[in-house]
């Protein structure tokens, strides 16, 4: 069933749109715009008021949550941006995410390559073994996972978060890579072998360069998953200096309790990178995220 879903042009103007070619009448158009604008407002208003709230004083926020600030309190944002905390959390998140992405791509692509091209006894069984990981979330095994990480001495290290994340991302990564590798024309393979190219060189010089789109998909999936993840770092990390931003923001909330203007400024700054990257690379991100979901 999944073949039917053309996930790559979701963000593009649809050439094959169901009713394209036909003009939409004025009444229909008014109905469409009113409905769409209402829904868009429900999405946008909380985000915009959050960003604006960061510029307000607490009193201003209380009397005027929706409007523009009376006095623009740039200091709310400025204090966060000049402090250590924000940058440290962003840095931690980035390190964890990049390590996760690199390992997921490397391990996933290599394993998938053997499943796609090398015939060996038990290959089918082994593949199914990996696909088992697609069926349940990391939360189900979180306590044994904690004990394992503790016994390995990885508690409160980046690796304690990265390795489980990679392991749980492998199922999807292998599935996506394998399907892509198998879809490559077999003539490529034959030609390379006739020319005396071994598996390793074929992987490095042919498969991987050709698989760039799927590398991007797997990369986006694992990056977004890691960047936003909360439960694994929550359980594996103890010292605040190693906290990625979702944990840091919760600590911040705990410290400033009802100083909502500061919390709002902090939230805005932490989601800002996500929003900027999303609008810069929206087509790839939407394709990556929906493809990952759909192809499972």
């Amino acid at each position: 069933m999944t073949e039917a879903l053309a996930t790559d042009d979701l963000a593009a103007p649809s050439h094959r749109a169901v009713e394209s070619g036909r003009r939409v009448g004025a009444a229909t158009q008014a109905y469409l715009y009113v409905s769409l604008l209402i829904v868009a407002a429900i999405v946008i208003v909380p985000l915009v008021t959050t960003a604006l709230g960061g510029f307000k004083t607490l009193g201003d926020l209380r009397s005027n949550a929706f409007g523009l600030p009376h006095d623009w309190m740039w200091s709310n944002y400025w204090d966060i941006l000049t402090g250590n905390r924000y940058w440290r959390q962003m840095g931690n998140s980035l390190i964890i995410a990049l390590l996760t992405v690199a390992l997921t791509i490397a391990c996933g692509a290599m394993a998938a390559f053997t499943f796609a091209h090398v015939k060996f006894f038990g290959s089918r069984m082994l593949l199914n073994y990996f696909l088992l990981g697609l069926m349940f979330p990391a939360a189900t095994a979180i306590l044994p996972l904690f004990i394992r990480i503790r016994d390995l001495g990885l508690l409160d290290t980046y690796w304690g978060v990265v390795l489980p994340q990679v392991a749980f991302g492998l199922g999807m990564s292998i599935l996506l890579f394998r399907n892509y590798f198998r879809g490559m024309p077999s003539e490529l393979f034959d030609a390379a072998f006739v020319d005396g190219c071994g598996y390793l060189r074929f992987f490095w010089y042919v498969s991987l360069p050709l698989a760039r789109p799927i590398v991007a998909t797997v990369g986006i999936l694992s990056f977004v998953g890691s960047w936003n993840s909360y439960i694994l770092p929550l359980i594996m990390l103890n010292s605040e200096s190693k906290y990625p931003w979702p944990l840091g923001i919760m600590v911040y909330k705990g410290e400033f309790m009802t100083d909502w203007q500061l919390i709002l400024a902090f939230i805005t700054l932490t989601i800002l990178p996500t929003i900027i990257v999303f609008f810069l690379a929206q087509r790839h991100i939407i394709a990556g995220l929906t493809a990952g979901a759909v192809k499972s």
Partner: protein
Amino acid sequence: MSTVPIASDRVAAPALARRRSSAIGAQGKWPVLILFLPPALLLFTVFVFLPMGEAAWYSLYNWNGYSLPTQWVGLKNFELIFKNAAFRTALVNNGLIIVISICIQVPLAMWLATMVTKPIRGAVAFRLIFFLPYILADVAAGLIWRFVYDGQFGLVGSIWHAFGVDAPFWLADKNTAMAAVLGVIVWKYFGFHMMLFIAGLQAIDREVLEAAEIDGATGWQKFRLVTLPMLGSTVRLSLFFAVVGSLQLFDMIMPLTGAGPLNATQTMVTFLYTFGVMRMQVGFGSAVGVVLFVICVTLAFSYRRIFMRND
């Protein structure tokens, strides 16, 4: 990316070509197996497979996580779970999320998808806006809505104050907290489901719709008799993700309500966290994990059995 053959088992290379190539490359087979498989195999076994097995083992003990589990309690932990009122709330809440998804999220997503696939100006911008909440972290979305729902400084407070009345604190009231959480879930995820439906709509052959039009079908008839039946597999896919998502819901609950007040907004995973991880009840927590695992696997298999059969 459009060239990715998704279910490539069916587009496998001709058997002959493959046999030939593997015969040629056979001598190099072992190095690649020895180099390429172990990293993934090791990581997966150590951090996914073994922990799941250990969860099943630990679930039979009463254990605080130190030294070795020795206090065998048999199935006592499972008995305790199902006797626990908070766990029953969690089950009901997970069920509610699925119900809301069927009754509100899927129709909403489908409705929006039909609108943003019409040839109107700004359709692409609307798609992006609707997808935006999905890319935000659950934690951030939870905190943003904690602010929105705040009766003193938040948007709800502001609206109520405008009418000169004291605002309710929905998240602090055990009767309304779950409804408020459900609202945030729909807000966060409808865009993703809309994208699924857009993909489904784009796959429908336009000629079928044109034929219906020539036969004099009205807009609503076209939707109900042509589009809707052809979206069947997308609806099932969308429901599947709603169910899976509901079973994993944790990140958003913690900033919103912390699973309170009085356990009113517990889900399976928050229950595992509050009663297993926080109290370091490894046996009890693992038993919750096992229950969750059984539910997930049953769902995955029955979903294939029941729904994928004719796709």
